[in-house]
């Protein structure tokens, strides 16, 4: 299976602090890869480099063979990467349907159209996406008044609007109630399996991670700590130390 995403030797420092150092991994088509690690492990920095918000100091990020390191987020999106944010980012002055239509308009390169009626474009496509995430009943509500869990679903629909090869989801279930978390991740997993989309997600909720990830990638202090199937990671002594804590972790802390 050819890799959808191939990351090699990725590093980023802030001042003297190495936030991410020499991280490499790859992601196969249709695979769900979880990126986990304690606070400050470098997950977000890693994500921001993949999403184009940070330029890596070194390393390559290849999307279907093409290096995208340092490209602007909007260009990365055009290459088929959808994304959701840790804190949802939607257009509050638009309805749920219009949010999805906006992404569709951009996907079809209609942004400079000055006189068409935006609200009547791609309605069917937008409704289909909203039905997919179970938001069709709320299509006409303004995004500004939605419950947080519903906003996450809208984000998912928006992220799917450009038929992405890859979804980057930064803590997709952060801030949600436990039952909602499971429902959202089940929905996500079902959709991406159906469509053969690869997913890279970060997550703090280990239930979510172990239930849905095909593979898990553990970061600690900017470095790869462990990698493998959920079972392998669960059994990994280093990971247990990192998460549960031990004296050893602090003993070699000065590296």
């Amino acid at each position, binding site marked *: 299976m050819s890799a959808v995403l191939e990351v090699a030797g990725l590093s980023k420092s802030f001042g003297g602090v190495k936030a991410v150092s020499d991280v490499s991994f790859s992601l196969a088509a249709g695979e769900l890869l979880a990126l986990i690690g304690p606070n400050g492990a470098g997950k977000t920095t890693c994500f921001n480099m993949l999403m184009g918000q940070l330029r890596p100091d070194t390393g390559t990020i290849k999307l279907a063979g093409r290096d995208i390191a340092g490209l602007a987020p*909007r260009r990365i999106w055009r290459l088929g990467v959808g994304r959701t*944010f840790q804190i949802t980012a939607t257009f509050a002055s638009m309805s749920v349907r219009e949010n999805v239509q*906006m992404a569709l308009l951009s996907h079809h390169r209609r942004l400079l159209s*000055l006189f068409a009626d*935006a609200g009547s474009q791609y309605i069917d496509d937008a409704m289909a996406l909203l039905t997919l995430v179970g938001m069709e009943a709320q299509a006409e*509500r*303004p995004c500004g*008044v939605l419950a947080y869990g519903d906003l996450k679903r809208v984000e998912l629909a928006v992220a799917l609007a450009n038929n992405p090869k890859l979804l980057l989801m930064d803590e997709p279930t952060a801030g949600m109630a436990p039952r909602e978390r499971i429902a959202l991740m089940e929905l996500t997993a079902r959709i991406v399996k159906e469509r053969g989309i690869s997913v890279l997600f970060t997550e703090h909720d280990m239930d979510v991670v172990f239930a849905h990830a095909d593979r898990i990638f553990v970061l600690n202090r900017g470095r790869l700590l462990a990698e493998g199937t959920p079972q392998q990671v669960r059994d990994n002594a280093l990971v247990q130390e990192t998460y549960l804590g031990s004296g050893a972790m602090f003993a070699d802390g000065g590296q």
Partner: protein
Amino acid sequence: MTAAPTADNGTPPLEFFLSQLLTGLASASALFLVACGLTIIFGVTRIVNFAHGSFYMLGAYIAYSAITALGGGFFGFWGGVILAALAAGLIGVAMEMTILRRIYHAPELFQLLATFGVVLIVQDVALYLWGPEDLLGPRAPGLTGAVAMGSQRIPEYDIFLILFAPLVLGVLWLLFHRTRFGILVRAATQDRQMVAALGVNQKWLLTGVFFLGAALAGLGGAIQLPKGNAGLTMDLGIIAEVFVVTVVGGMGSILGAYLAALLIALIRVFAVANAGSSLLGIQLWQVELVLIFAVMAVVLVVRPWGLLGKRETLTGHHGAVEPPLLAAPAALKWFALAVLALLVALPGMAGTYSLVIATEILIFALFAASLHFLMGVGGVISFGHAAYFGLGAYGAALMVKHFAWPMEAALFAAPLGGALGALIFGWFCVRLSGVYLAMLTLAFAQIAWAVAFQWIDVTGGDNGILGIWPSSWAATTPAFYGLVLVVVIVMLLAIRRIAFSPFGYALRAGRDSPLRADAIGIDVRRMRWFAFTLAGLFAGVAGGLFAFLKGSVSPDLMGIPLSVDALVMVLLGGVQTLAGPLVGAVTFTALKTELVSLTNYWRLLLGLVIVGLVIAFPQGIAGFVRDRFMAKETRA
């Protein structure tokens, strides 16, 4: 502002240059004092205080009166200066306690508007108290002589001023690093909420900061008195330069303000010292203002947060979450049709005077709508939208004047003029965001104004261009009204259409969440640049029509007051509704016309009305009506 230099009368160039340098440095002192007051206030309150120039002006007037009352002499003079600073500080406190305290949580534009209301009030109060004539400043006792430097003589007072600014800088440094108040101010500049959480009484901290900032401005006005006058144009005269200094130095940075003030002094010196050279047929000393603003533009493109400022954290929107932009409900559409019918029937009912006013209101409605498109839909705040109105007016007038174009052709030059200016200025502006962007728009408007004012051969300078009359078929008042009505309606419909087009949606997307917009392939900066250009185009149409209505153009059409008028119209009407700017233009123009005919002190009344409206309706009139009477599911 600057007298024609006398470099070629045999003075050695170096000595001439040095004496110019010292003069420039002396003039930087007052500018620094005012700018550091503004920057301190902004740092803590996040309010861009338009009225800061008014404190400067009041400082000069009060110093004049106090020195006169105290009978001059050493103690009379310096006592007067100190009194002026204290009085300006207290006036600042009064403004903070009565007005700003009520609107700290309002969107920043409304705060700005309220401070502009204060500018208007102070202008008329000063007119009432001190009269329309400039008052010649008294000289400083003990510093009336001059020091010889080669063949040049440097006034002692200049030397005092040059030393005074670093002295103030040092005192402020001690204040901010050695006193509890100063440390709190610095802490609040970094994180006001955290300071509040630590139990500091915010109220008095903010009031204290306002006192300090206003007193510094007052001091600036007072100490420049021996070098010039106290006059009624001091407030807006200095505010643009103060904005430049604060922004170039970095908002909130006192040392930055000092460096920027010095930089501007040096540009002045450079412009004067190279007085012989010319650019595009304009003497270089005349383009001093242009040079200053050009330097600002360059600094901001290279370092968008100023020389010593901190990088702005990306904020998605200013103030509250924008409610959805709704298509007008049916009732409103009928109402609009009724208004339209009334407008069509107006020439049959109204007299010539009313019809001229109605024409003017229509033109301003288009002008305001063009600004609203940029601000409301695009989320881009412009303090200098009059530039594009003026460029449109000049575009048309220049074609008539220099190429004898008929009205019909010249009216096509107007939108081109506005759009071209906006295309060029906008390219710089959209690189910044928030307050920095807004201040850059003001700076560009001042450049346009300075060019119109100083490029006398082409623009006629202060006198402008006269004799811009409509073609014969549109020469009567009703006919011209009809022309304006048709053009304005077509343009307003076009703006409305664009607001609901994919482009308009993409603009709103960039305003609502730049992060998300970028993540779905929208080039927010480019969208804003196009929006800027389009807004310039529509403003240009309005300017072209205005030129033919008045029969003339003058640099005033690009001045700060007109830019602020447009802001007032948009904010009065409410930023979040498409009908807002129309309601605002009608209300504002009618109000202003009425007040002007009523009293000489119309600015005072207008200022009070603006301040009152901001406090009463922070949503604007149309926004208030919509929320009150058409409230649906718009707010959580």
